[in-house]
């Protein structure tokens, strides 16, 4: 399930896994809207993002990062950064696939603001 910014679910300012995954998938669908028909991604929970066998180039990855950061901020009131030193030092890159990015955002949101 994907969520547009207007219909983002709020859980006492804490977003659960499905809600965050919906944001990531919506960011990928937004990306598809901006690409030509020949360049459209197959969007799903297993879509690989960046790195080996990935679907995105750096330009597309930035689009996803910006949209997810904005969606999380709109829904939770929390500002998160997906490109800081902490994100880069993760054992598994948050950008590997939809699931790893979702898990990383959920981890950030599980911590005190």
């Amino acid at each position: 399930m994907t969520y547009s910014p207007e219909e983002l679910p709020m859980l006492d300012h804490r977003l659960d896994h499905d809600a965050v995954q919906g944001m990531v998938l919506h960011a990928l669908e937004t990306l598809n809207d901006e690409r030509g028909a020949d360049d459209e991604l197959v969007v799903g929970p297993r879509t690989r993002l960046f790195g080996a066998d990935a679907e995105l180039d750096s330009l597309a990855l930035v689009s996803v990062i910006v949209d997810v950061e904005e969606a999380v901020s709109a829904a939770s009131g929390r500002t998160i950064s997906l490109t800081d030193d902490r994100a880069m030092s993760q054992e598994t890159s948050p950008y590997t696939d939809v699931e790893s990015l979702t898990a990383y955002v959920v981890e950030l949101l599980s911590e005190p603001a």
Partner: protein
Amino acid sequence: MAIDDRVLRGEFVNLRPLRVADAELTFRWRSADRARFLNAGARTVEEQADWIAARPVAEHNFIIELADARPVGMVSLTDIDRVDRRGEPGRFLIGDEVAVHGVPAAVEAMKLLYRLAFDDLDLVRVCGTVAAENKLMLKWQKFLGMREEGRLRDHLLLDGRFQDAVLLGLLVEDYRTTTLPRMNALIAAARSR
């Protein structure tokens, strides 16, 4: 070595000077749908070759190559003003999108170009316009530190229709504090496999 002849070397991509021999390849890239937001270019390969041959020495026009020398795109630094110390990055196009999946080609190409602008040429500002409907590029440039400085109404005639151009600018201090760390983060992400 003259700066115009120099290859700018990165980890994943290199920038080498655009040559007349690149006319057929760059014409093909510019004719593709993904180039729809660039200004109208040459209508034939011959015109493209003439255009390349006519580039003034003051411009820095590059082909983006992967480490294995495969050409994947192009980028330029033009309108360099050595008095006011500003320039315009542009003509930025990834022509072979499949070849750069998972590779930080776009971001490293921009990093190399900005290093040329801010470190080698000692510019204090780069600026340029992006078509208002080119949302992907606007998002990209703003994420990398550019700020919106204005909007030129109906400034561009693209695909038979006028649209606004968004004026974006980046100062050297924002380049060092915002742009460079973010570029390095994206490049680092490609290393973690």
